[in-house]
């Protein structure tokens, strides 16, 4: 899959931006603040119906002083089949979503259509940062490709908010949200466990290769409810009982367990956490390995190579690793690299004969209306 063209109107800092892309390596360059990330925002929004910055409000998406944005892109798959995606948004939200010119109603119609991997500054801290990042990682990829996961997640979060409020009033009535929390929490836990089991082999190979290790740390899903969850699928009854217990404790002020407190962990052979023994550089490389394992998983789901967007993510990796990652990713994929200049790794690839399209963004000086 690759993005063939994009058009952004009154979107973020752009009045009008349109560009055609080639398959393969694309360098998106220009000074800071010129809108490189905004181009990636537009692609993300059209490819998967979500912004990179999730908290972004629509009134900040629409260009300052305008009332509507219009975004459109053409995605072409490996069988040369093209899909045109267009979205129109106003200050209050999405107004129109069109697939090949036909209205499809909601943004969720874009889910699971275009395989895309975004590698941003936050991703590099996946293993060194807080558990919230790792849960967000799981939620983002699974909601994109599994409608049942998204449904369970939305309901789980809603039930949590309702229960927190209810607890302040009456612990007895707050209990009424527990069945939903247990049911949806179980769905989320099972699907996360299955995902981790799915990507483990690929992650294992990738991290060994990147860190040149003989024994790779093992990727594990750590449930706050039950420490010893069977990956083949935990039994519902034991899960529910453990949940119930934690909810009873929660009514006396303790935190209850559930997927909102679970974590992804890297365990080394002697049982210790990789985080306690690894250097910052190794942790960054492990984070990249996890993202690349996600890439392979997404491609397997989509039956199609993904578009890869790299935004200020790899420059903290040492240059040999940077080159390894880029060379690996750029094989048979469209890679959009956003940066103020061409990185050394990219220059090395082009010296080896790989074609690269350079798109230089410049600050546009406003032209007075004639």
């Amino acid at each position, binding site marked *: 899959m690759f993005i063939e063209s994009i058009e952004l109107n009154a979107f973020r800092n752009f009045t009008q931006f349109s560009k055609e892309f080639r398959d393969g390596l694309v360098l998106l360059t220009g000074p800071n603040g010129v809108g490189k990330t905004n181009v990636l925002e537009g692609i993300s929004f059209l490819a998967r119906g979500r912004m990179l910055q999730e908290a972004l409000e629509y009134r900040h998406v629409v260009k300052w002083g305008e009332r509507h944005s219009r975004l459109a892109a053409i995605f072409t798959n490996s069988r040369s089949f093209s899909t045109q995606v267009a979205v129109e948004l106003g200050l209050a939200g999405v107004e129109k979503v069109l697939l090949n010119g036909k209205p499809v109603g909601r943004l969720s119609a874009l889910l699971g259509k275009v395989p895309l991997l975004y590698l941003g500054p936050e991703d590099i801290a996946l293993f060194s940062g807080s558990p919230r990042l790792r849960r967000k990682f799981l939620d983002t990829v699974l909601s994109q490709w599994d409608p049942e996961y998204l449904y369970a997640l939305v309901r789980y979060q809603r039930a949590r*908010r309702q229960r927190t409020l209810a607890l302040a009033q009456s612990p007895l*009535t707050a209990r009424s949200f*527990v069945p*939903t929390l247990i049911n949806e929490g179980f769905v989320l836990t099972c699907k996360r466990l299955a995902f981790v089991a799915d990507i483990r082999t690929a992650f294992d190979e990738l991290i060994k290769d990147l860190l040149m290790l003989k024994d790779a740390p093992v990727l594990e899903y750590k449930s706050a409810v039950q420490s010893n969850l069977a990956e083949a699928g935990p039994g519902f009854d034991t899960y529910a009982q453990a949940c119930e217990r934690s909810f009873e404790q929660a009514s006396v002020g303790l935190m209850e367990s559930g997927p909102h407190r679970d974590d992804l962990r890297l365990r080394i052979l002697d049982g210790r956490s990789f985080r306690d023994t690894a250097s910052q550089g190794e942790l960054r490389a492990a984070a990249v390995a996890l993202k690349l394992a996600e890439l392979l998983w997404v491609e397997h789901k989509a039956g199609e190579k993904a578009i890869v967007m790299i935004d200020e993510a790899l420059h903290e990796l040492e240059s040999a690793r940077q080159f390894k990652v880029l060379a690996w990713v750029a094989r048979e994929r469209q890679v959009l690299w956003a940066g103020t200049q061409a990185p050394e790794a990219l220059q090395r690839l082009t010296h080896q004969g790989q074609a690269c399209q350079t798109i230089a963004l410049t600050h546009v000086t406003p032209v007075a209306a004639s």
Partner: protein
Amino acid sequence: MAFPLPFEKLVVALGRLPGMGPKSARRVAFYLLGCPVGEVEELADLMRSMRQELRYCRQCFFLTWQSDICHICADPGRERSQLLVVADPKDVVTLESAKVFKGLYHVLGGVYSPLQQRGIEQLRVKELLQRLKTETIVELIFALPPSVEGEATRSLILQQGGSTPFKVSQLAVGLPVGSDIEYIDQLTLGQAIRARVPLL
């Protein structure tokens, strides 16, 4: 420039109605300004008498007129052992249009939702629990919205109801009648598979 105060006040009041934005509120206000006075008076009368004459049924809390008991509860032909719980009076109208259910209803008047400041005491849960004790119910059927709040309301009723000597069920979820599997979204399909019914 603003319109005279009585006009603006009406626009604000109309704008609070469901489905009415400021633009349509203004359009309605202009219409009322232009039509014969008799028509406006009739409309105002209808609104007032609707509010004054309609009541909630003493038994099921559906709407009733000129009597304490609604026409469904008063109907001797209804099956008194089946009780169907809904959130809103409009759900009764919808279910009645299917002409399938022959039992009685209980209208809760909403679902439990702390986020929308709707507490359990604002719903007719106590009245329902009382009915379960005094009436000879064989089956209690839930037809609440399939939302988080609908589910919470159901479990609240079952928790507070204690042991239930009757059958408890809820409306089935799944495929719309007459639809082709090919056109059903993955989520609905998954629900329908899980809620499948045995044939043999």
